[in-house]
Structures are given as structure tokens and as C-alpha cells.
């Protein structure tokens, strides 16, 4: 069966990452910046799973099914990365949103360029 080549996934991930980076760097709304960060994290997830599926030897073996099942379970590192990153992203979103709400309460605004109190 002809598989979708790896670089397709990589293109999607690169696109996602670029959009996320753009959002994080350019958007003035703090919530949008957070969303940009989420996008970047998810792009990384896509990369991690894609590389696991195509590059990692254990994944290959599992796909070919000429290896015992125990090794297959051990060789799930790409997916574990992705799960950890999702959990981390959830935590980051919770903290980030809490900060944004706190900022909003004190300033009635989400506008990041105004928040430059630490200017030297």
C-alpha cells in the first residue's frame, strides 16, 4: 500500500508552525498570542508522531508486524512525546489564560504593546 509520503506531513506541520509563530509574534491580542503558541505546539506534535511513524525503527517493525508486541509497546516514544506536549499545552493554556484574565481585570485590555512596564 502506498503510504502518504513523510514530507506531506512535514509540510502541514511547517505550515501550522509558521502560522502559529506569526500569530504569537504579530497579534496584539494576548489571547491570540496564546492561540499561536498552541498552534506551534500542535505542529510539533504532528512532527513528532510523523517522524515516529516513518523514521523510528520500532515503529517500522511494528508496522511490519515481524516483532513481538512487547517491543511495539516500548517503541511508542513519539506518541508519548505528543501526549506529554498536549498535557503541557493544557497546563500552559490554563496558566496563560489565568494571566490574561488577571491582566484584563487590572487594565481592561488585552493589548500587549501597552504592557511594557519592564522597559529599561
Amino acid at each position: 500500500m502506498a503510504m502518504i509520503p513523510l514530507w506531506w506531513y512535514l509540510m502541514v506541520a511547517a505550515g501550522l508552525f509558521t502560522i502559529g509563530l506569526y500569530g504569537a509574534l504579530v497579534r496584539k491580542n494576548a489571547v491570540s498570542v496564546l492561540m499561536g503558541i498552541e498552534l506551534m505546539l500542535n505542529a510539533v506534535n504532528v512532527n513528532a508522531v510523523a517522524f515516529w511513524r516513518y523514521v523510528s525503527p520500532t515503529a517500522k517493525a511494528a508496522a511490519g508486524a515481524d516483532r513481538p508486541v512487547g517491543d511495539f509497546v516500548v517503541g511508542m516514544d513519539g506518541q508519548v512525546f505528543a501526549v506529554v506536549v498536549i498535557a503541557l499545552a493544557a497546563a500552559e493554556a490554563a496558566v496563560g489564560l489565568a494571566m490574561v484574565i488577571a491582566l484584563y481585570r487590572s487594565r481592561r485590555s488585552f493589548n500587549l504593546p501597552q504592557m511594557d512596564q519592564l522597559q529599561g
Partner: protein
Amino acid sequence: MDLHSIGPLAWLIPTFTALAFVVIIGMIVTDRASKNAAWVAVAGIGASTLLALPTFLAALGSASGHGEGEAGGLAIAPFVKQWAWLPMGRDGALNLGIMVDPLSAAAVAMVTVVCTAIFVFASAYMEGEFNNYRDARTGLPDPRTGRNRYARFFAYVSLFATGMLGFVLSSNLLQALLFWEVMGLCSFLLIGFWNFKPSAAAAAKKAFLTTRVGDCFFFLGILGLYWVFGSVDYADMLSKAGIEKLHALAPFAVDIAGHVYAVPVIPLLALLVFGGSVGKSAMFPLHVWLPDAMEGPTPVSALIHAATMVSAGVFLVARMYPVFSAATPDHPGYISGPMFVVAALGAFTAILAATIAVAQYDIKRVLAYSTVSQLGFMVAALGIGAYVAAVFHLLTHAFFKALLFLGSGSVIHGMEHGMHHGQDGHGDGHGSGHGSGHDEQAAPYQPRRIGGVLAADPMDPQDMRNMGGLAGKMPWTFRTYVIGTAALTGIPLLAGFWSKDEILAEAFHKGVQSQIAIALIVYVLLTAAAFFTSFYMWRQVFMVYAGKPSTEMAAHAHESSPAMTGPLIFLSIFAALLGFVGVPEGLPGIGPALGNPFHHFVGALTASGSHFEALAFDWTPMLISTVVAFLGLGAAWWVYGRDPAAARARDPLARLGRLWALLNNKYNLDEVYGLVVTSNPRIHGEADVTEHDKTVAERLGKLIGLTDAFSRLNGQIDARLVDGAVNLAARLGEKFSRFNGLLDRYVVDGAVNLVAFAGLDLSRGLKLLQTGRVQQYALIVLFALLFLVGALVM
């Protein structure tokens, strides 16, 4: 009781009063001060008395137990118990200990009994302090401070009694000096007890500094005696061996500018020790502090001027008598050099103070000069070798002078109450306690002088011109006061008659029969002083008690409480009867029956082996002194007794004019001291330095132009040379500091500032990077990352 069973406990006698002191101080610091302080003090001295009297009786028993022929067992071997305090030298040590011999046993019994009476009296007398203390500045009632001051007073007097008892009982000279200084400290604290009065503060300083002059000599004497004996124990010095050691000493060669002088050691040491007595017992020329010491509360006057401190000086001479008489060769009636000085100074002081006392108006000041005069009697008696008579007079005088002082305290107390009674609508009828001066609402008193004599302040409760008629108002005070006066003036059969007569009889015997010039001079001077004594004491009695009251204050005076009259009655019994222990045996009738126990007890005193023979009885001096006493009484009655009210209003003796002013102003001695010693007329204890004082001071200043010129020269040296050097040093210091300042400002500070400014300039570019905007930071991170990755790839 045996002395060897009770003697070892004698150290407890001063310890009880010391404990009372500690307990009362504890009450003050824990804020529990109350009237109990007085009872703690009375309990302390009472315990001392209860131990002192058996000790005295035991000493009496062991002294007479050995019979006359053996010259008294206790006198040869006094009971000594001592502990090594500071071991030093080859085998010597400075000891602490007690010595019980006839002299100290008699003195300790006297001191404890008199002190007990005084303490009880004071517990009532100081109540004004307790109840009515007002802050000196604001005038507001301050009961807490009042309570504390009341307690403090009893702490001080307890410590004072400790000082005297420790001094009397001490077994060596150094310990004696320690307790002697304790007394000095306490007298300072007590004279200045009303320290919010400038005059009291000045008097305290004066007393302290004046006695300290004498103490310097005393200490030098102790050092000299230590040099001779290698010990300061009485047992080593006053024994037969010790006196022989003194005799063996060669004169001490002193080289002054090439001339070698031979200084005889014994007189030198004796006179140095006597210097201490001159300060403590207020002999001329150091007597000036004692009359000013009247600024203290009256019980203190009784304590200092009767029982304790001033007797300490006489006691010291009596204690060291073997050293004084050591230069006497072995034939009777010779007076050694130091004893000559002692006799002359004593007699001169006696007559000087007696004449001053005639012209005083302050009730306590008369008694103070009387004390100086009587101390002169004792010292003169010691000087002519009338040892027993001197000690006898010391003891009797303590009783009747304490009685007189307490009596005057009772009078002042009554007058103060009369003063407050006279001012209706004045609160609770009590003012600001004793000694806090005049009531603020009364018209201020302007000191003015009439014929050179300060006029009476109508609000002064101590001025005899404000008194009169108190005989009826204060009957018990009056009766006891008359007994005390009669005893002091030598009215027959009372205590002072026997003791003073014994001194005069000895002087008469040595002066007239043995033809010793100094004794004759002493006899003449003392007899004259006895006349003046009688005169001024009866003058005082007439002015205070006779006639009609001169002021409202006196009219409203009333008798003091039993706590005050009780001690008066107690002491008056002694004043009346104590003399009978020393009646000459030769007196027909009572003499042989009484047997003169005092002479037998004290007469065989010294361990040096000398024994004082009682004189053969002679009617002549006894009759002369009786006549003199009654002459004084008669003269006082003639001048003051016939019309006391008029005498109070205008003193008949003021007709003496300048002589009267001179006497009233104490021969201007305070002004002389002010010029010569302190060069500050304010220091001499009286707050009212008036124009008159200044003119007197100026006149005296011309008289002693030499001193003046010397002072001027000194002043010039001081201003030019000493000040110049000081100023030069100051100027150099200033220049150097200025240079240092420049160095600091420009070099040191410059370096610091350079670092700061450089840091500021360098950071100016970097500062632009820190915009505070997170997204820009992230952008920088991004570009940096790209750059790094690019670099890595290429």
C-alpha cells in the same frame, strides 16, 4: 556572758544594718517601697543593738575580771577575730576582722543605742516626705517618688550605721578607712537628700570634698604605718612591741634641693592620721562643711553630728593614741609634738566654734557649731593626754547632742505644722513636705541685711527669731530639750557636767600643777568655750521656748507624735544619768559608792601597756566649771531671758556692731575659702550670695593680694602658654582635616563616581533593547536562533 562566746558574733553587728540596707534597696527597685522601709531599718539597727549590748556587757565583765593590778585583761589582749582578705608580701596579709576592746565595746553600745532612737524618731519625722511629696518643678503631688524617697532615706541611714559600726569594730586601719569612706558617701547622700534645693546640693558637695581632703592625709598615714610595721592591724601597731618598733625608727632623711632634713617619723605619721580626724571631726580649718551639713533632714544631723560620723574622727585619735603619745619619754606630764598640735588645734576649734555659735539664728546651726566646739573639747583632751576624759565626753556628748538635734527636729516639725495651719484654705493643710522651702503662694522673701546680719525670713521654720512660746505648745520637747541643754552646758549632776569637768580637771591639773604651758592654754580656752557654750545654749532655749510666740507659725505649733517624743524621753534619761558612770572616785559622798566604773573600764585601755591613772580629786576646777556654767546661764537670762520677745525682734547683742556681724558670718571663713580655695563664692553652701557677700569677698581679696597676684600670673600663663599650645594644636588639626576633606571629596569620591558614570554610559545602548514588550523579545530569540542555525549549516 563570756566575751569568747559572744565575741565571734560581733561581725554581725554591722551586718544587720547592712542587710536592712539591702532589703530596702530591694523594696525600691521592685517598686514595693512603703512605710515598712522605716521598720526594716529600725529592725536592722535594733538587731544590732540587741547584739551590741551583750557584747558590751561581756567586755565589761572580762575587763574587770582580771582586777586592777593586772591593768585589765581585755585591754592588754583585745578580742580579735579576723580573716585574711588579701594575702600579700612575704607572710603578711590585709585582713578583715573585728576587734573588741573597751574603747570599741563602749563606742558600739553608744552608737547602736543612739541610732535606734534616731531611727524611730525619723520614721515619724520623714512622714511629710512620704505623704506630701510634690515634684520640685511642677509642684504636683508625686506619691510614688515620695514613697521611694522615704525608703531611700532609711536605706541611706542604715548604710550609714553600717559604716560607723564597721569602723568602730574594725581590727585594722585599712578596714577602718573603708567604712570611714562608706560614712563619707552616706553623709554626701544624706546631706544632699533634698537635692532639689541648690543649697543642699552645694552643701553635700562641700561636705564630701572637704572631708576628702582629710581622708587623703589619713590614707597617707596608713601607707606610712604600713611601711613601718608591714601591717595595718591594730594588734601589730598598738602593742608594746609595735610601740618599741616605732621608737627604734631613725628619723627619715629628706633631701630637698641639696639640704637634708631629718623628719621624725612618729610625729609625721601621727599628724597624717590626725589629718583624717580633722576632716571627719570638723576641726579647724576643715570645720566648714559641718554647719552647712544642716541642709540635710534633721535626723541626719543627729546621726552625723552626734552619734556617728564626727565622733569617728575623735575615735580614730583615741584608737591611735599610743602612736600619738609614742614620742613621749617616760616621765609624766610631757606632751609630745603631735599631741601638742592636737591639743592646740582642738582648743582653738573649741573656742572658735563656740563664739560663732553665739551669733547664729538657725536653731540647727547653733547646734552644729556647738558640736564643732565640743569635738574641739574632746580633741584637746586627747592632746593633753586626758584619754579617758575624752572618750567619756565622746559618749555622753553623743547622747545629749542627739537629744538636742532630735529636739530641734521636733521643734521644726511643729513649726512647719504651725505654718500650714496658719494658712487657711490651703488644701489639706500640708505643704510640700519638709525642706521644700517656702510655699509658692507666700510673698517671696527678699534677703536683706541689717547691720551686716541677714534678717529673719518670716516663713523659715528653723529661724529662732520666728519662734518663742513653744514651752507650752510642746511640753515634752521642751522638758527634754532643757535636760539636753543642761547636760551640754555642764549643769551639775547631769552627764555633760561630769565628762566636761573631767577634761577641765585634767587640763587644770597639768596646766596649773604640773606647769605645762599647752595644758594651761587649753584649760583657759576650754573654760572660755564652756562659758560661751552655756551662754549660746541657754540663749537658744530662751529664744525658742520663752515668752510669747513671735509668729503665727509658732503660735500654731503643736507637740509632735509619740514616735518623736518617745526617743527624746529615752535619750534624755541617758543625758541625765549617764554621767554617773564616770564620777571621780575622790568626790566625797557619792564618788566612792559609784566607784568610777568607766575609768576602770576604759582607763587601762591600750595594749601598748600605758595605764591612765585617775587624778586625785580636786575641788577647784569643778567649782570653776560650775560657776562658769551658771555664769553663762545667768548672762543668757540677763540678755535674752528677761524679755524674750524683744530679744527675738532685735537681738540685744547686735549692739556689738561689726563684731556681731563678723561672728554671725562665721569670721567670714567661707568667703576666705571661696576666694582662696574654690575662687567661686557660690560654692560655699549658701544659695543667697548677696551684694554684702560680694563686698566682703572683695575686701578680703585686697587683703590677700599675694594670692591674687599669683592667681593673675597663673591666669596669664594659662591664657598665653597653655591655651596657646592648645590653640596651636587645634589649628594644626583643623588644617590637616581640611586637607583630608579635599582628598576625600576629589580623589576618593571621584573614583567612586567614575565607576558609576562609566556604568551608566555603557548601559545606555543596551538599555534600548529592553523594551518591555514580550513579542519583541521573542522576535529577537527567533532571529538569534535563525542566525545560529544558519551559522551551523554554513
